[in-house]
């Protein structure tokens, strides 16, 4: 039957077409990263990929990567936390206060930083969950509160608080950093892609009602994701203050925005769901770090770097935002 034969052929062609489309959207962020690196390498005459600058890059992407993988759990279930930069600052303040003012050992300071991080992300996560508020709004409030605490705290302790690098040396060791980074990313990847925790977070992001009706506990998942994010913020705080050498009112500033751009550049779905991948987060973080670093190397002022990042964010979101969720128009 010739008709039958023809239709089978077309079906096969179209199947391949749709596979190609899936592949395309998976590969696109990779290409973005490669293109960024390529263009900026040429623009900086190879300076971008020099060994010294690569160490810089690793240092610069360290914080965004650590907080990013933590944030992935929150974004996966459709949550969001815009307060991570400010809470990272307060965590640094807590850590330095414990170590220099209370003269307690470093590990207590570390614990204090983690606790502040967890407390902030919990207020955002569990607060919005319990009060049925938009997590974005709650996180803005927390961000504002944290900024205030940071300013007041820094003023009380003397504007730019110097971090005693002899005590914090361990957080400035490149080997320690690499081990922590690799271990955290690997562990997050395992949790996110291979365990029921990650799968449940993504299910909630895909369809909250369905997830609940399938027996998934919303509160438990919001709690765990906030916990993971908080711990990551605490860890990042200790490393960041040790690198910059001071804690000030601008500590942690801009971290949340870098994470948002990393999400967009890496192809991580903003509303969460089954397409969320740790891989996307990492690619995004690398791209944004190369971009920031490269543009600075080219000689662009930091204000202009911010401008470029902002424009890029709008363009990427406009081009790549998955609108298929909007198609199921919610009339109720």
């Amino acid at each position, binding site marked *: 039957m010739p008709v039958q034969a023809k239709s089978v052929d077309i079906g096969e062609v179209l199947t391949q077409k749709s596979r190609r489309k899936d592949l395309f959207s998976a590969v696109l962020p990779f290409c973005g990263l490669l293109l960024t690196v390529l263009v900026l390498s040429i623009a900086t005459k190879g300076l971008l990929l020099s060994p010294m600058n690569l160490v810089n890059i690793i240092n610069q992407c360290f914080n965004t990567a650590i907080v990013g993988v933590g944030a992935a759990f929150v974004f996966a279930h459709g949550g969001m936390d815009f307060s991570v930069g400010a809470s990272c600052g307060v965590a640094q303040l807590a850590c330095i206060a414990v170590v220099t003012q209370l003269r307690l050992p470093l590990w207590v300071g570390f614990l204090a930083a983690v606790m502040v991080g967890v407390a902030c992300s919990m207020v955002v996560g569990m607060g919005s969950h319990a009060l049925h508020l938009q997590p974005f709004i709650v996180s803005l409030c927390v961000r504002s509160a944290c900024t205030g605490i940071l300013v007041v705290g820094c003023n009380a302790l003397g504007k730019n608080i110097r971090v005693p690098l002899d005590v914090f040396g361990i957080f400035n060791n490149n080997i320690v950093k690499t081990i922590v980074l690799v271990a955290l990313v690997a562990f997050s990847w395992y949790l996110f892609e*291979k365990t029921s925790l990650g799968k449940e977070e993504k*299910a909630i992001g*895909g369809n909250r009602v369905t997830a609940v009706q399938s*027996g998934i506990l919303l509160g438990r998942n919001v709690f765990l994701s906030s916990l993971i994010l908080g711990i990551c913020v605490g860890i990042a705080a200790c490393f960041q203050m040790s690198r910059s050498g001071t804690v000030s009112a601008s500590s942690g500033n801009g971290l949340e925005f870098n994470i948002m751009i990393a999400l967009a550049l890496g192809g991580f779905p903003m509303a969460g769901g089954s397409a969320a991948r740790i891989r996307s987060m990492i690619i995004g973080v690398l791209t944004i770090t190369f971009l920031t670093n490269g543009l600075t190397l080219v000689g662009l002022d930091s204000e202009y770097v911010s401008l470029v990042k902002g424009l890029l964010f709008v363009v990427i979101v406009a081009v790549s935002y998955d609108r298929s969720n909007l198609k199921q128009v919610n009339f109720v």
Partner: protein
Amino acid sequence: MKKKPILRAMQVNKNFGPTRALVDVDFLLYRGEVHGLIGENGSGKSTFSSIIAGVQSADSGSFELNGEPYLPRNMVDAQNRGVGMIVQEQGTIGSIDVASNIFTGRLEEFSKFGFVNMKQITARAQQILNDIGAGDIDASAPTMSLNFEDRKIVEMARVMVADPDILIVDETTTALAMKGRKILFDLIKRFRASDKAVIFISHDLGELMNVCDRVTVLRDGRVIDTLSGSDITEDSMRRLMVGREFEDHYFRSDFVCSYDEEVVLDAQHITYGSFTNLSLQLHKGEILGICGLSDCGMHELGKVLFGIEKSLTGRVVLPQDGTQVKNPHIAVKKGMGYLSKDRDRESIILNASILDNVELPSMRLLSNAVGYISAKSERRLAQEQIDVLKIKCRGPKQRLTELSGGNKQKVVFSKWLGCDSDILILDCATRGIDVGVKAAIYRLLEQIKKKGKSVILISEELPEMIGMSDRMLVMKDGKITAEFRRSEDLSEEDIIRYMI
């Protein structure tokens, strides 16, 4: 009388990704005719009608309307040329009033210097509602306050605003109870009498037989045959749709009311929404039917039994170990499963794969002590379910957005079969699903019953109730008004008496 064609379609083709939705479809619609369009889910009937209504465009082929080339750019264009459609899905906006819904997109006609004359709109809307026999709906009421059926009637009124020559009704009756159906059928009759035309899409073969002058059968995107007059019988339609003879029984073959004495689910004096102080018991191996009009409270009852909504009084208990079903988490853990009436919004994740959906309630069983789920075990689970339920797909990784309604419904079943649920609460399990999948679901329910599992079947379709359940509870205004046991003599009339 020589019949005049009003709409002609020639060699229409349409593809969705890898799916060939329409293949060289020819179609002829005469004036004064009600033309049925039937086929299994995914056969292309909704696609075809939505192309006529301007919702989407064909890949190739042509249309003629009243002898002139017809190629609607969008739905409004189609409406202006006299083609109106009442769609399958909920299409009203809840947050605005009824009149604004009826005149959506036409508000400019009533506005001066940017101010909209709401009084005039409300009056016109009420006039239209009265005209179609739905005068009891208040045009100034917020749409949210209406029930599902009345909102559907508002959509009918909206289509009538443009005074169309061709009315397309796409599986609307599944959402309608008696009142809505009467209004719809009166409307259809009026179209026929005034020499206009209706394209009527439905899964209800009895209904099609009663209303249609001709019926075109689609299968896999192709026109199989067009029946007319006395050739339109339930048997002939079913045969053409599925492409093979049906076994002689469609519902359960036995007429014995059979179940164990053991109670597996016990609802005691529960109260929620429209029902108060309601008690019922489900037995091991029983199919318990709950039927009534759509606003009788049976849908809320299903949700309370599964712990989605909290009962204000009393409790829902699993007698084996005394567990109280307080939330869906406990329900699922204790082997219960729930299929929502609103499948796409509540029972599946559209944008995820079959695998992601099937494993939703099973993750607890698949994972080890630290929560690890091996890729192999989840794939095996999904593939098993695809094989058992014969889900038409490319594989476990295919997204649900690409599946037809019937196959999506199968995915919901596979969710609960995959975790071996003992109690299934099914709210309108066969709503908007073609006969092929329907029959498959009925066979499945028989098997589930044979294995000693229990089912609560909530449905508005009485043949299904009578055909499948061991015991039937009839609900009206939040109360159980009658209980019937399975018997051969039970008729729909017996039940309807207690429903209205």
